[in-house]
Protein backbone atom coordinates (compact mmCIF):
# COMPACT_ATOMS: atom_id res chain seq x y z
CA UNK A 1 0.00 0.00 0.00
CA UNK A 2 1.41 3.39 -0.97
CA UNK A 3 1.96 6.18 1.54
CA UNK A 4 -0.76 8.20 -0.10
CA UNK A 5 -3.26 5.41 0.36
CA UNK A 6 -2.43 4.85 4.01
CA UNK A 7 -2.71 8.57 4.81
CA UNK A 8 -6.18 8.73 3.35
CA UNK A 9 -9.33 8.36 5.45
CA UNK A 10 -12.41 6.98 3.64
CA UNK A 11 -15.62 8.96 3.87
CA UNK A 12 -17.96 7.82 6.61
CA UNK A 13 -21.45 6.66 5.68
CA UNK A 14 -22.78 9.97 6.98
CA UNK A 15 -20.37 11.86 4.70
CA UNK A 16 -21.48 9.73 1.75
CA UNK A 17 -25.13 10.44 2.59
CA UNK A 18 -24.41 14.18 2.88
CA UNK A 19 -22.79 14.16 -0.54
CA UNK A 20 -25.78 12.43 -2.12
CA UNK A 21 -28.24 14.76 -0.40
CA UNK A 22 -26.34 17.79 -1.65
CA UNK A 23 -26.55 16.53 -5.26
CA UNK A 24 -30.36 16.15 -5.25
CA UNK A 25 -31.91 19.13 -7.03
CA UNK A 26 -34.80 21.20 -5.72
CA UNK A 27 -38.16 19.71 -6.69
CA UNK A 28 -36.83 16.17 -7.26
CA UNK A 29 -39.00 13.11 -6.63
CA UNK A 30 -36.76 10.58 -4.91
CA UNK A 31 -37.04 7.00 -3.71
CA UNK A 32 -34.58 6.04 -1.00
CA UNK A 33 -33.94 2.32 -0.77
CA UNK A 34 -33.83 0.40 2.48
CA UNK A 35 -30.52 -0.11 4.25
CA UNK A 36 -27.59 2.28 3.94
CA UNK A 37 -29.39 4.80 1.67
CA UNK A 38 -31.89 5.53 4.46
CA UNK A 39 -29.17 7.81 5.94
CA UNK A 40 -29.66 10.23 3.05
CA UNK A 41 -33.02 11.30 4.46
CA UNK A 42 -31.23 12.78 7.48
CA UNK A 43 -29.24 15.17 5.31
CA UNK A 44 -31.81 16.52 2.84
CA UNK A 45 -31.22 20.27 2.59
CA UNK A 46 -33.91 22.39 4.22
CA UNK A 47 -33.76 25.01 1.50
CA UNK A 48 -34.96 22.60 -1.20
CA UNK A 49 -38.31 20.87 -1.63
CA UNK A 50 -37.52 17.21 -2.24
CA UNK A 51 -40.43 14.76 -2.32
CA UNK A 52 -39.74 11.28 -1.03
CA UNK A 53 -41.62 8.36 -2.54
CA UNK A 54 -42.09 5.14 -0.60
CA UNK A 55 -43.02 2.01 -2.57
CA UNK A 56 -45.80 1.09 -0.15
CA UNK A 57 -47.85 4.07 -1.22
CA UNK A 58 -46.51 7.44 -0.04
CA UNK A 59 -45.48 10.55 -1.93
CA UNK A 60 -44.29 13.28 0.41
CA UNK A 61 -42.95 11.06 3.15
CA UNK A 62 -41.82 12.89 6.29
CA UNK A 63 -39.27 12.07 8.99
CA UNK A 64 -39.56 9.63 11.86
CA UNK A 65 -42.45 10.39 14.22
CA UNK A 66 -42.08 11.33 17.86
CA UNK A 67 -42.88 8.36 20.15
CA UNK A 68 -46.47 9.53 20.74
CA UNK A 69 -47.10 10.00 16.99
CA UNK A 70 -46.15 6.44 16.00
CA UNK A 71 -48.83 4.89 13.77
CA UNK A 72 -48.18 1.42 12.37
CA UNK A 73 -50.54 2.15 9.49
CA UNK A 74 -48.02 4.78 8.38
CA UNK A 75 -44.74 3.02 7.64
CA UNK A 76 -41.95 3.16 5.06
CA UNK A 77 -40.51 0.48 2.78
CA UNK A 78 -38.36 -0.74 5.67
CA UNK A 79 -41.60 -1.09 7.70
CA UNK A 80 -40.53 1.62 10.15
CA UNK A 81 -43.01 4.30 11.32
CA UNK A 82 -42.78 7.58 9.38
CA UNK A 83 -44.84 10.73 8.96
CA UNK A 84 -46.54 12.46 6.04
CA UNK A 85 -45.64 15.99 4.97
CA UNK A 86 -48.34 18.57 4.32
CA UNK A 87 -49.38 17.94 0.72
CA UNK A 88 -48.37 14.29 0.90
CA UNK A 89 -50.56 11.55 -0.57
CA UNK A 90 -51.37 7.89 -0.07
CA UNK A 91 -52.11 5.47 -2.91
CA UNK A 92 -52.25 1.75 -3.60
CA UNK A 93 -49.38 -0.43 -4.74
CA UNK A 94 -50.43 -0.47 -8.37
CA UNK A 95 -50.19 3.32 -8.65
CA UNK A 96 -47.01 3.36 -6.59
CA UNK A 97 -45.25 1.01 -9.00
CA UNK A 98 -46.70 2.87 -11.99
CA UNK A 99 -44.80 5.87 -10.62
CA UNK A 100 -41.63 3.82 -10.45
CA UNK A 101 -41.83 1.80 -13.63
CA UNK A 102 -43.42 4.60 -15.63
CA UNK A 103 -40.41 6.90 -15.27
CA UNK A 104 -42.03 9.37 -12.89
CA UNK A 105 -39.29 9.27 -10.25
CA UNK A 106 -36.24 11.46 -10.78
CA UNK A 107 -33.80 9.55 -8.60
CA UNK A 108 -33.63 6.19 -6.86
CA UNK A 109 -30.87 5.66 -4.31
CA UNK A 110 -30.04 1.99 -3.85
CA UNK A 111 -27.53 -0.12 -2.02
CA UNK A 112 -25.52 -2.64 -4.03
CA UNK A 113 -23.36 -5.74 -3.85
CA UNK A 114 -21.77 -4.97 -7.22
CA UNK A 115 -21.94 -2.36 -9.98
CA UNK A 116 -20.45 -3.14 -13.37
CA UNK A 117 -18.70 -0.74 -15.72
CA UNK A 118 -21.72 -0.84 -18.06
CA UNK A 119 -24.09 0.19 -15.25
CA UNK A 120 -25.40 -3.30 -14.46
CA UNK A 121 -26.59 -3.55 -10.87
CA UNK A 122 -26.54 -6.55 -8.51
CA UNK A 123 -28.17 -5.83 -5.18
CA UNK A 124 -30.74 -8.48 -4.29
CA UNK A 125 -29.03 -11.85 -3.96
CA UNK A 126 -25.63 -13.35 -3.42
CA UNK A 127 -24.59 -16.77 -4.62
CA UNK A 128 -24.82 -18.12 -1.07
CA UNK A 129 -26.98 -21.26 -1.33
CA UNK A 130 -28.18 -20.81 2.27
CA UNK A 131 -29.40 -17.26 1.72
CA UNK A 132 -33.11 -16.67 1.30
CA UNK A 133 -33.72 -14.53 -1.76
CA UNK A 134 -35.78 -11.34 -1.51
CA UNK A 135 -36.12 -8.76 -4.26
CA UNK A 136 -38.88 -6.35 -3.21
CA UNK A 137 -39.09 -3.23 -5.37
CA UNK A 138 -35.41 -3.04 -6.37
CA UNK A 139 -35.90 -4.32 -9.93
CA UNK A 140 -38.75 -1.89 -10.56
CA UNK A 141 -36.68 1.06 -9.32
CA UNK A 142 -33.69 -0.09 -11.36
CA UNK A 143 -35.61 -0.04 -14.64
CA UNK A 144 -37.97 2.81 -13.81
CA UNK A 145 -36.21 5.69 -12.07
CA UNK A 146 -34.70 8.27 -14.42
CA UNK A 147 -31.45 8.21 -12.45
CA UNK A 148 -30.25 5.33 -10.31
CA UNK A 149 -27.62 6.31 -7.75
CA UNK A 150 -25.88 3.59 -5.78
CA UNK A 151 -24.55 4.13 -2.26
CA UNK A 152 -22.06 1.52 -1.14
CA UNK A 153 -18.61 1.01 0.27
CA UNK A 154 -16.02 0.43 -2.46
CA UNK A 155 -14.72 -2.78 -0.94
CA UNK A 156 -16.33 -5.84 0.59
CA UNK A 157 -15.32 -6.92 4.08
CA UNK A 158 -12.85 -9.27 2.36
CA UNK A 159 -11.34 -6.31 0.49
CA UNK A 160 -12.78 -7.14 -2.93
CA UNK A 161 -13.91 -4.25 -5.11
CA UNK A 162 -17.65 -3.89 -5.68
CA UNK A 163 -16.93 -1.99 -8.90
CA UNK A 164 -16.50 -4.77 -11.43
CA UNK A 165 -16.08 -5.54 -15.11
CA UNK A 166 -19.07 -7.92 -15.00
CA UNK A 167 -21.35 -8.63 -12.04
CA UNK A 168 -20.91 -12.15 -10.67
CA UNK A 169 -23.95 -11.87 -8.41
CA UNK A 170 -27.49 -12.19 -9.82
CA UNK A 171 -28.51 -9.00 -11.64
CA UNK A 172 -31.16 -6.54 -10.52
CA UNK A 173 -31.17 -4.49 -13.70
CA UNK A 174 -29.11 -3.98 -16.84
CA UNK A 175 -27.20 -0.76 -17.52
CA UNK A 176 -29.30 1.18 -15.04
CA UNK A 177 -26.81 2.81 -12.64
CA UNK A 178 -25.65 6.31 -13.49
CA UNK A 179 -23.54 7.20 -10.44
CA UNK A 180 -21.97 5.42 -7.47
CA UNK A 181 -21.32 7.12 -4.14
CA UNK A 182 -18.64 5.20 -2.27
CA UNK A 183 -16.45 5.82 0.76
CA UNK A 184 -13.62 6.19 -1.80
CA UNK A 185 -15.29 8.88 -3.85
CA UNK A 186 -18.09 9.57 -6.28
CA UNK A 187 -17.85 7.70 -9.56
CA UNK A 188 -19.96 8.29 -12.66
CA UNK A 189 -20.82 5.56 -15.12
CA UNK A 190 -20.28 6.83 -18.64
CA UNK A 191 -20.10 5.28 -22.10
CA UNK A 192 -16.30 5.49 -21.61
CA UNK A 193 -16.47 3.58 -18.33
CA UNK A 194 -16.02 4.60 -14.68
CA UNK A 195 -15.13 8.27 -14.25
CA UNK A 196 -14.08 9.74 -10.88
CA UNK A 197 -16.25 12.74 -10.15
CA UNK A 198 -15.00 13.57 -6.66
CA UNK A 199 -12.36 11.99 -4.42
CA UNK A 200 -11.89 12.25 -0.68
CA UNK A 201 -8.91 14.34 0.48
CA UNK A 202 -5.68 12.36 0.40
CA UNK A 203 -6.80 9.85 -2.22
CA UNK A 204 -5.51 10.28 -5.74
CA UNK A 205 -6.69 8.53 -8.86
CA UNK A 206 -3.79 6.05 -8.91
CA UNK A 207 -4.50 4.95 -5.36
CA UNK A 208 -8.22 4.66 -6.13
CA UNK A 209 -7.48 2.54 -9.20
CA UNK A 210 -5.18 0.35 -7.15
CA UNK A 211 -7.87 -0.23 -4.51
CA UNK A 212 -10.73 -0.65 -6.96
CA UNK A 213 -8.72 -3.00 -9.16
CA UNK A 214 -10.48 -1.60 -12.20
CA UNK A 215 -9.89 1.38 -14.48
CA UNK A 216 -11.41 4.61 -13.23
CA UNK A 217 -10.60 7.65 -15.34
CA UNK A 218 -10.18 11.28 -14.41
CA UNK A 219 -13.19 13.48 -15.07
Amino acid sequence: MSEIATAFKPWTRAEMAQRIAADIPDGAIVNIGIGMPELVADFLPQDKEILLHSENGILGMGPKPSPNEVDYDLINAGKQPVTLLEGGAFFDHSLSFAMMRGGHLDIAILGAFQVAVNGDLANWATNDPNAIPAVGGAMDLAVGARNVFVMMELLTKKGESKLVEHCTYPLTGLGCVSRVYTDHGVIDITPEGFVARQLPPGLDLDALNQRAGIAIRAS
Partner: protein
Amino acid sequence: MIDKTRPDTRSCVADIPDGATLLVGGFGGAGMPHELIEAVIARAPRDLTIISNNAGNGTTGLAALLAAGLVRKVVCSFPRQADSFVFDQLYREGKLELELVPQGNLVERIRAGGAGIGAFFTPTGYGTPIAAGKETRQIDGRNYVLEYPLKADFALIKARRGDRWGNLTYRKTARNFGPVMATAAKVTVAQVEDIVPLGALDPEDIVTPGVFVDRLVAIGTGAAQ
Protein backbone atom coordinates in the same frame (compact mmCIF):
# COMPACT_ATOMS: atom_id res chain seq x y z
CA MET B 1 -81.46 -6.23 -0.88
CA ILE B 2 -77.70 -6.54 -0.93
CA ASP B 3 -76.06 -7.27 2.38
CA LYS B 4 -72.48 -8.54 2.28
CA THR B 5 -71.86 -8.09 5.99
CA ARG B 6 -71.09 -11.16 8.08
CA PRO B 7 -71.46 -11.48 11.85
CA ASP B 8 -68.01 -12.98 12.45
CA THR B 9 -64.73 -13.89 10.77
CA ARG B 10 -65.45 -17.62 10.99
CA SER B 11 -68.39 -17.44 8.58
CA CYS B 12 -66.26 -15.38 6.17
CA VAL B 13 -63.72 -18.16 5.62
CA ALA B 14 -65.78 -21.30 6.35
CA ASP B 15 -65.75 -22.44 2.71
CA ILE B 16 -62.02 -22.12 2.00
CA PRO B 17 -61.11 -25.61 0.73
CA ASP B 18 -57.86 -27.53 0.89
CA GLY B 19 -55.54 -26.49 -1.92
CA ALA B 20 -57.05 -23.01 -2.25
CA THR B 21 -55.07 -20.00 -3.45
CA LEU B 22 -55.35 -16.96 -1.19
CA LEU B 23 -54.39 -13.36 -1.87
CA VAL B 24 -53.48 -11.84 1.49
CA GLY B 25 -53.20 -8.06 1.79
CA GLY B 26 -50.68 -6.10 3.76
CA PHE B 27 -47.17 -4.75 3.59
CA GLY B 28 -45.51 -6.02 6.71
CA GLY B 29 -48.14 -5.51 9.42
CA ALA B 30 -49.88 -2.55 7.76
CA GLY B 31 -53.05 -3.79 6.07
CA MET B 32 -52.49 -7.37 7.23
CA PRO B 33 -55.92 -8.94 7.91
CA HIS B 34 -54.83 -10.57 11.16
CA GLU B 35 -58.30 -11.54 12.38
CA LEU B 36 -59.26 -13.18 9.08
CA ILE B 37 -56.01 -15.13 9.12
CA GLU B 38 -56.76 -16.29 12.67
CA ALA B 39 -60.09 -17.58 11.38
CA VAL B 40 -58.37 -19.43 8.52
CA ILE B 41 -56.00 -21.05 11.02
CA ALA B 42 -58.98 -22.17 13.09
CA ARG B 43 -60.66 -23.69 10.02
CA ALA B 44 -57.32 -25.24 8.98
CA PRO B 45 -57.59 -25.86 5.23
CA ARG B 46 -54.39 -27.53 4.01
CA ASP B 47 -51.99 -27.11 1.07
CA LEU B 48 -52.75 -23.44 0.64
CA THR B 49 -50.97 -21.20 -1.83
CA ILE B 50 -50.47 -17.72 -0.38
CA ILE B 51 -49.88 -14.66 -2.56
CA SER B 52 -48.71 -11.73 -0.42
CA ASN B 53 -45.90 -9.19 -0.41
CA ASN B 54 -44.09 -10.70 2.54
CA ALA B 55 -44.01 -14.11 4.14
CA GLY B 56 -44.90 -13.21 7.69
CA ASN B 57 -43.41 -11.14 10.48
CA GLY B 58 -42.89 -12.34 14.02
CA THR B 59 -45.38 -14.97 15.11
CA THR B 60 -48.71 -13.42 14.12
CA GLY B 61 -50.65 -13.02 10.87
CA LEU B 62 -49.10 -14.86 7.92
CA ALA B 63 -46.29 -16.16 10.12
CA ALA B 64 -48.89 -17.92 12.28
CA LEU B 65 -50.55 -19.40 9.18
CA LEU B 66 -47.19 -20.75 8.01
CA ALA B 67 -46.34 -22.05 11.48
CA ALA B 68 -49.66 -23.94 11.53
CA GLY B 69 -48.38 -26.00 8.59
CA LEU B 70 -51.27 -25.08 6.30
CA VAL B 71 -49.27 -23.52 3.47
CA ARG B 72 -47.63 -25.37 0.57
CA LYS B 73 -46.44 -22.45 -1.52
CA VAL B 74 -45.75 -18.74 -1.06
CA VAL B 75 -45.73 -16.24 -3.93
CA CYS B 76 -44.15 -13.02 -2.68
CA SER B 77 -41.56 -10.32 -3.30
CA PHE B 78 -39.76 -10.02 0.02
CA PRO B 79 -39.81 -13.06 2.30
CA ARG B 80 -36.52 -12.41 4.08
CA GLN B 81 -36.79 -9.89 6.89
CA ALA B 82 -35.34 -9.35 10.33
CA ASP B 83 -38.35 -11.09 11.90
CA SER B 84 -39.26 -13.68 9.23
CA PHE B 85 -37.86 -16.60 11.25
CA VAL B 86 -40.98 -18.75 10.81
CA PHE B 87 -40.73 -18.61 7.01
CA ASP B 88 -36.94 -18.93 7.08
CA GLN B 89 -37.01 -22.19 8.99
CA LEU B 90 -39.80 -23.80 6.93
CA TYR B 91 -38.09 -22.74 3.69
CA ARG B 92 -34.71 -24.10 4.75
CA GLU B 93 -36.35 -27.38 5.80
CA GLY B 94 -37.82 -27.64 2.29
CA LYS B 95 -41.39 -27.50 3.59
CA LEU B 96 -42.39 -24.44 1.58
CA GLU B 97 -42.22 -23.71 -2.12
CA LEU B 98 -41.29 -20.10 -2.93
CA GLU B 99 -42.06 -18.15 -6.10
CA LEU B 100 -40.16 -14.89 -5.83
CA VAL B 101 -41.75 -12.03 -7.81
CA PRO B 102 -40.48 -8.45 -8.02
CA GLN B 103 -42.93 -6.26 -6.14
CA GLY B 104 -44.12 -4.26 -9.13
CA ASN B 105 -44.64 -7.44 -11.13
CA LEU B 106 -46.52 -8.95 -8.20
CA VAL B 107 -49.03 -6.13 -7.99
CA GLU B 108 -49.32 -5.76 -11.77
CA ARG B 109 -49.93 -9.50 -12.20
CA ILE B 110 -52.70 -9.27 -9.60
CA ARG B 111 -54.06 -6.14 -11.29
CA ALA B 112 -54.05 -7.98 -14.63
CA GLY B 113 -55.83 -10.91 -13.01
CA GLY B 114 -58.60 -8.65 -11.78
CA ALA B 115 -58.80 -6.51 -14.90
CA GLY B 116 -59.22 -9.24 -17.51
CA ILE B 117 -55.77 -8.80 -19.03
CA GLY B 118 -54.31 -11.96 -20.59
CA ALA B 119 -50.64 -11.09 -19.96
CA PHE B 120 -48.40 -8.03 -20.18
CA PHE B 121 -44.88 -7.02 -21.14
CA THR B 122 -42.87 -5.31 -18.38
CA PRO B 123 -39.28 -4.04 -18.37
CA THR B 124 -38.85 -5.13 -14.75
CA GLY B 125 -36.55 -8.10 -14.37
CA TYR B 126 -35.33 -8.19 -17.97
CA GLY B 127 -31.92 -9.85 -18.13
CA THR B 128 -32.11 -11.08 -14.55
CA PRO B 129 -32.69 -14.60 -13.16
CA ILE B 130 -36.35 -13.61 -12.56
CA ALA B 131 -36.89 -13.57 -16.33
CA ALA B 132 -35.15 -16.87 -17.04
CA GLY B 133 -37.14 -18.94 -19.53
CA LYS B 134 -39.78 -16.25 -20.04
CA GLU B 135 -40.84 -14.80 -23.37
CA THR B 136 -39.26 -11.41 -24.12
CA ARG B 137 -39.89 -8.77 -26.74
CA GLN B 138 -38.25 -5.56 -27.86
CA ILE B 139 -40.74 -2.71 -28.17
CA ASP B 140 -39.55 0.73 -29.33
CA GLY B 141 -35.98 -0.28 -28.60
CA ARG B 142 -36.61 -1.40 -25.04
CA ASN B 143 -36.62 -4.96 -23.74
CA TYR B 144 -39.62 -6.43 -21.95
CA VAL B 145 -40.58 -9.69 -20.26
CA LEU B 146 -43.97 -11.35 -20.64
CA GLU B 147 -45.71 -11.84 -17.31
CA TYR B 148 -48.99 -13.63 -16.65
CA PRO B 149 -51.85 -12.68 -14.33
CA LEU B 150 -52.31 -13.93 -10.79
CA LYS B 151 -55.80 -14.83 -9.60
CA ALA B 152 -57.03 -16.47 -6.45
CA ASP B 153 -59.94 -18.34 -4.96
CA PHE B 154 -60.11 -15.93 -2.04
CA ALA B 155 -58.70 -12.50 -1.22
CA LEU B 156 -58.37 -11.56 2.43
CA ILE B 157 -57.84 -7.84 2.94
CA LYS B 158 -58.07 -5.19 5.64
CA ALA B 159 -59.79 -1.85 5.11
CA ARG B 160 -60.89 0.97 7.36
CA ARG B 161 -64.65 1.27 6.83
CA GLY B 162 -67.20 -0.55 4.76
CA ASP B 163 -70.93 -0.57 4.09
CA ARG B 164 -73.33 -3.41 3.32
CA TRP B 165 -72.74 -3.04 -0.42
CA GLY B 166 -69.04 -3.72 0.19
CA ASN B 167 -67.74 -0.22 -0.53
CA LEU B 168 -64.41 0.27 1.23
CA THR B 169 -62.15 3.05 2.47
CA TYR B 170 -58.59 2.52 3.69
CA ARG B 171 -56.22 4.04 6.19
CA LYS B 172 -52.81 5.53 5.30
CA THR B 173 -50.25 2.99 4.04
CA ALA B 174 -52.47 0.10 5.15
CA ARG B 175 -54.13 0.55 1.72
CA ASN B 176 -51.17 -0.99 -0.14
CA PHE B 177 -52.32 -4.21 -1.91
CA GLY B 178 -55.95 -4.16 -0.73
CA PRO B 179 -57.64 -2.34 -3.63
CA VAL B 180 -55.84 -4.46 -6.24
CA MET B 181 -56.25 -7.82 -4.49
CA ALA B 182 -59.97 -7.15 -4.03
CA THR B 183 -60.37 -7.32 -7.81
CA ALA B 184 -58.59 -10.61 -8.45
CA ALA B 185 -60.34 -13.28 -6.38
CA LYS B 186 -63.50 -15.33 -6.83
CA VAL B 187 -64.42 -14.38 -3.26
CA THR B 188 -63.07 -11.20 -1.66
CA VAL B 189 -63.36 -10.89 2.10
CA ALA B 190 -62.63 -7.58 3.83
CA GLN B 191 -62.17 -7.04 7.53
CA VAL B 192 -62.93 -3.45 8.46
CA GLU B 193 -62.78 -1.41 11.63
CA ASP B 194 -66.47 -0.66 11.40
CA ILE B 195 -69.43 -1.08 9.12
CA VAL B 196 -71.35 2.12 8.47
CA PRO B 197 -74.85 2.67 7.04
CA LEU B 198 -75.24 2.92 3.27
CA GLY B 199 -74.61 6.53 2.27
CA ALA B 200 -72.35 7.29 5.21
CA LEU B 201 -69.19 6.87 3.12
CA ASP B 202 -68.46 9.91 0.95
CA PRO B 203 -68.55 8.49 -2.60
CA GLU B 204 -65.44 10.60 -3.35
CA ASP B 205 -63.56 8.67 -0.64
CA ILE B 206 -64.54 5.14 -1.64
CA VAL B 207 -61.39 3.44 -2.98
CA THR B 208 -62.81 -0.05 -3.54
CA PRO B 209 -66.33 -0.02 -5.00
CA GLY B 210 -68.55 -2.73 -3.56
CA VAL B 211 -68.63 -4.75 -6.77
CA PHE B 212 -65.22 -6.16 -5.84
CA VAL B 213 -66.17 -7.25 -2.32
CA ASP B 214 -68.22 -10.32 -1.41
CA ARG B 215 -68.08 -10.39 2.37
CA LEU B 216 -67.10 -7.95 5.09
CA VAL B 217 -66.83 -8.21 8.81
CA ALA B 218 -66.32 -5.51 11.45
CA ILE B 219 -63.37 -6.07 13.77
CA GLY B 220 -63.18 -2.78 15.66
CA THR B 221 -60.21 -0.49 15.96
CA GLY B 222 -57.32 -2.63 16.98
CA ALA B 223 -53.98 -0.95 16.39
CA ALA B 224 -51.95 -2.58 13.61
CA GLN B 225 -49.35 -5.08 14.77
